[in-house]
């Protein structure tokens, strides 16, 4: 990949690390001045040993679980935080969209925030005046532009933030998971706008948990894991590795998932051909396979299989008949549990979890609370945990099909 820095790289990181001192209790001036005991602190490296070069005009996706260091890196690229070691070089004007809002003052109106933000992002007052109408029109906030932004919804905040950022002609646009709060229509508008910026040569870094967004916009992606840059490569490769790690990291916690009576030796998700399913798709026939080892003699263990959505909602549950006798296991004996199912769920990440109990369902032998992660790419335009494969038609013209929104000419552009 293009990791070798050139003189013209838009962004360059060499040996970058960021350490946070986590204070055990808040620091107090009185204590610092007077000879009391000092507040103890713990060091935490949020990011370490990152070497990276991003060329002008590239669009790069950033993946990783929460706490992997993605936001820490973006904050340093935005210039608000400096690294504890290493050097960051940024060539050109940066427009950061980190979290919701580019940095708005809640007491100020939308109009005032547009001006202050435009100026903070490098425009002059005259330039903001010139672009003001376009910004407000893009954000669709003409009716609320003189309302203090503390009364805005998160969607309105995000719309205004995005509108200001893209109208400052940035050389580098940093987008951190903000698109998630907008409605579908606005998300599409943002996609269009990012494509236009892409075409105009803007460098874009996009942090997203939506693999769909990454696939659509980014040829290249970075995967962060526990503060390290785990992988830098073509998006598909990186997404695959990301999902693999989600499973690995979940399985790594088998100790926690052990009950007193049995332990989970391994668990995998396989597809219809018997291969490990790294990229299951909606509607695929999948098999959850787990190997258990019993730690004492058990007669007729019962199995509960359940699927949790990202927010903890129970998406599905299936259990064996409590009390029904089938066979017994001796201590140390292993058993294979296989659960075949069809992935008829909406897009998102799910946890496939298992509970094994004794014959009467009273004593839990094993509780796999962490579960196995399964990611299903959401069809564009859809949301929710059910997969209803809705078709929307207007006067007979189909606007969506079960694969998601029909994007007209973009459909062709997306095709490889």
């Amino acid at each position, binding site marked *: 990949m293009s990791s070798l820095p050139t003189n*013209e790289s838009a962004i360059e990181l060499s040996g970058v690390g960021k350490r*946070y001192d986590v204070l055990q209790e*808040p*620091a*107090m*001036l*009185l204590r*610092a001045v007077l000879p009391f005991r000092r507040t103890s602190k713990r060091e935490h490296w949020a990011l370490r040993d990152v070497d990276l070069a991003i060329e*002008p005009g590239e669009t790069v996706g950033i993946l990783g679980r929460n706490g992997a260091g993605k936001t820490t890196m973006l*904050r*340093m690229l*935005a*210039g*608000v*935080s*400096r*690294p*504890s*070691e*290493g*050097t*960051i*070089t*940024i*060539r*050109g*004007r*940066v427009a*950061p*969209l*980190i*979290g919701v*809002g*580019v*940095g*708005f*003052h*809640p*007491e*100020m109106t939308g109009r*005032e925030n547009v*001006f*202050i*933000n435009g*100026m*903070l*992002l490098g425009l*002059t*007052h005259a330039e903001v005046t010139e672009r003001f109408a376009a910004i407000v029109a893009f954000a669709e906030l003409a009716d609320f532009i003189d309302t203090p932004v503390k009364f805005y919804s998160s969607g309105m905040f995000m719309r205004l933030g995005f509108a200001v950022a893209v109208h400052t002609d940035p*050389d580098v646009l940093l987008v951190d998971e903000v698109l998630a709060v907008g409605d579908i229509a606005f998300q599409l508008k943002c996609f269009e706008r990012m494509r236009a910026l892409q075409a105009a040569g803007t460098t874009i870094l996009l942090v997203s948990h939506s693999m769909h967004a990454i696939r659509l916009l980014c040829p290249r992606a970075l995967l962060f894991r526990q503060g390290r840059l785990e992988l830098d490569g073509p998006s598909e490769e990186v997404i695959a590795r990301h999902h693999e790690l989600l499973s690995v990291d979940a399985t790594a916690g088998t100790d926690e998932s052990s009950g007193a009576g049995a332990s989970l030796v391994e668990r995998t998700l396989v597809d219809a051909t018997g291969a490990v399913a790294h990229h299951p798709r909606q509607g695929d026939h999948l098999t959850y396979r787990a190997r258990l080892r019993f730690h004492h003699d058990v007669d007729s263990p019962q199995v509960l299989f359940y699927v949790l959505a990202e927010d903890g909602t129970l998406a599905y549950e299936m259990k064996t008949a409590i009390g029904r006798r089938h066979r017994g296991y001796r201590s140390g004996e292993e058993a294979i549990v296989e659960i075949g199912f069809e992935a008829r769920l909406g897009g998102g990440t799910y946890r496939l979890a298992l509970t094994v109990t004794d014959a009467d369902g009273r004593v839990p032998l094993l509780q796999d609370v962490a579960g196995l992660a399964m990611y299903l790419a959401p069809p564009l335009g859809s949301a929710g945990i059910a997969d209803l494969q809705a078709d929307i038609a207007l006067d007979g013209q189909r606007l969506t099909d079960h694969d998601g929104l029909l994007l007209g000419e973009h459909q062709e552009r997306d095709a490889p």
Partner: protein
Amino acid sequence: MAEGRRVLVIGPEPTPWSEWAADLVAHGPVLVALARKDFQTRYKRASFGVLWAVVLPVVQALVLAVVFSKIARFDTGGWSYTTFVMSGIFAWAYVSGTAMAATTSVVEGASLADKVWFPRAILALVPVLANGVGLVISLLVLLVAIPLLGTWPGLSILLLVPASVLLLALTTGLSLVLSALQVYYRDTKFMVTAVLLVALYLTPVIYPADLLGEWEGWLALNPVTGVVELFHSGALGVGIDGRSLIVSVIASAALLVGGAAAHRRHDRLFVDLL
């Protein structure tokens, strides 16, 4: 293609002085916009609006003048006690009000500072500038009041110019230092409140310094004393204690340099603690 583009290099070291200062100057328009906003929000939702910026200090001065001239009966040596209180209280109100607001400025600016880069010193300077408008109004009120109250100090009135400059320097220095401290030590604002409460009585604002007799020298150790006395000189034409003036000048310079150094040194680190 990259020609003419800004190149930003950030490492673990603080920004060099020249770069930090240039960045601060470049953000001047943002400072002005934020200060204007700060001033407007304070008075916008009140009836009579900006008129309050004039009324409040006048009422404060009148109350003090009435109360203390009737009750305490200081020996004023012929000059107007009301002029004395007004000239001192305006300076005091500016330095104390600004220091209080500036202390929490960086911490409270988190929603703005969290995401977009600008030198954090800008946030500390916002109240300095915003309250500066009120100070100018107060000084105009003072200029009108002095002849009305009977004692015109003659050419000494020009001393109000260096007095204002020294007041600005002291306040700016304090604001920079306190705003940086508050990020690291969240109890700073309580200490500031407490110190200011006591300091009003350790500054010759309500009473003339010579009232203290042999203790007068101790008052000079308070850096605000020199500033307030310079205002008294301008408004009343009275002499000034050289020691307190020297303390004020040295303290202002030290606070300015120290505050700027603290901000430069921690500028891209503040955000980690917000």
